[in-house]
């Protein structure tokens, strides 16, 4: 009889086993979500410059905060998470994994890891592209850290939501596009419950851009950058752990449904 694999061996085996999935359609959609807006911005920036127009270097800040952080990062999480352990649940291939002696709680992270690494690579490339728009070289490492940290947390959150709720993508979209934008009018304690707060604490604040017309805008709080990065990592780790715990304790049968037992 073989010994059951360790959690690390389980994560490694699952990540390597499912790694080719990122090179298929969904993986390229993920890459496009980063590269297309950045590429388009670079193209417009270059054309305006060639025509002698005034292309401000503040464009990089705008693309980073308004496009990558607010739009593309959540969409990436909404696209990638269903290809994680949720995919096995829906395709009814999960029983094949759950009847192996490997620890079930390690499977969500193992399946999510290739998507995290793939997305991280493209996000880093996207931030590098922003340098062409005149991005501050001093902010380059923290911007990459902020995006990668937030990607880790958001992907883990969506994996957890996908295991807890049948309509996980809907709940995730509501969180990202209804809750997160409220950060400007949240009191300080609630601001810390958004990814936006931690990203801005790490990669530069946009408080100055709050318009006077935003009557409900609250004073923006900041967290120390190191703490903000640790918070993103911790949120991700907590969500992966909860997703693993959910899978470990939930009876999931051949129909993908739960029994009472």
């Amino acid at each position: 009889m073989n010994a059951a694999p360790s959690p690390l061996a389980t994560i490694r085996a699952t990540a390597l086993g499912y790694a080719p999935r990122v090179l298929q359609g969904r993986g390229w959609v993920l890459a496009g979500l980063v590269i297309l807006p950045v590429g388009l911005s670079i193209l417009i920036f270059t054309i305006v410059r060639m025509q002698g127009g005034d292309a401000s270097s503040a464009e990089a800040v705008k693309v980073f905060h308004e496009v990558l952080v607010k739009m593309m990062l959540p969409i990436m999480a909404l696209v990638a998470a269903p290809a994680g352990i949720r995919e096995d649940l829906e395709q009814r291939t999960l029983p094949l994994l759950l009847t192996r002696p490997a620890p079930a709680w390690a499977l969500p992270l193992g399946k999510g890891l290739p998507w995290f690494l793939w997305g991280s690579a493209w996000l880093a490339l996207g931030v590098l592209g922003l340098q062409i728009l005149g991005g501050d070289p001093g902010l380059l490492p923290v911007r990459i850290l902020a995006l990668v940290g937030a990607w880790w947390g958001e992907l883990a959150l969506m994996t957890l939501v996908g295991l807890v709720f049948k309509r996980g993508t809907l709940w995730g979209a509501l969180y990202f596009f209804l809750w997160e934008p409220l950060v400007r009018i949240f009191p300080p304690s609630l601001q810390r419950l958004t990814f936006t707060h931690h990203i801005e604490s790490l990669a530069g604040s946009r408080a100055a851009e709050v318009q006077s017309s935003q009557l409900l805008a609250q004073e923006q709080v900041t967290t120390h950058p190191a703490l903000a990065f640790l918070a993103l990592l911790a949120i991700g780790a907590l969500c992966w752990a909860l997703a693993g715990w959910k899978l470990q304790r939930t009876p999931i049968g051949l129909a993908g449904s739960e029994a009472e037992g």
Partner: protein
Amino acid sequence: MLSLDRASLRYGPILGLSPTSFELPGGGGITGLLGPNGAGKSSLLQLVSGLLPPSGGAVRVFGEAPFRNPAVLARVGLVPEGDRLPTGLRADRWLRMMGELSGLSGEGLKAAMARALQTVGMADRSHLTFARMSKGMRQRMRLSQALLHEPELLILDEPFNGLDPEARLTLMALLRDLAEKGTRILVSSHILGEIAQLTDRILLLFRGRLLAEGTVTEIRQLLDRHPVELRLTGEAQVLARWAVEQPELAALRMEEEAVVLSVRSPRDFLPRLQQAAAEGAIPLRALDPLDLNLDAVFQYLTKDHA
């Protein structure tokens, strides 16, 4: 090796398996789990393979509860129903992953993969993606992942569904071979003929209840008590005159150019009918079994047990 002690399974308000008790001895051999669709076969197999915990009673496999129990799962192989496999993966890479998740590594894993692929006849086609495989090939790959770690208990849920006759025979031969080498096999089906070709022992399930347990011969005798309806097309009057003289006849109904017989022990009746038709004693043009399906048999047995 395997025991159920009043084990039951509920899906919310629906009872998937009534309290059921039985035991499977250790050592090789094939046990068939027979029942119509919805009888509770998959529920029972999910309890035994550790996918679901029982809602009541106890399930013991190798002396332990199997749900999320690595010590048990390392000795069990499951081939679930259907031909679903992860999309977009190459079969050999997926098999490697399944081997690693079974605790295999290095040379041991390589040897196990080669052996499992050889056993299911997929050694030269394992480089294909699942999308490029036929249903039969996918079924073989599903079997190979269950054999990879050489399980002592192999569980197969409706493994013959969708297979062509040749693939069916190949799989049967393979299962018989594994059983001879010491693997205990639990295989479910809703077709008596399939199970009868395979097993030395049958568990009969109906509507979540274990109805009967015994050898193929014992189950056959039980089923023979059930009157089977046959429609004989030809000259109805002559056919009816011949039929009433047969001891197995339970009831008779006349139709236009046909007669519908209700017959007990069809295994005794049918050869005599065939012989009479061949000798020209009866003008038989066609023979149609009307209720030879298991559902009808099970309904009869249920009434019998009520």
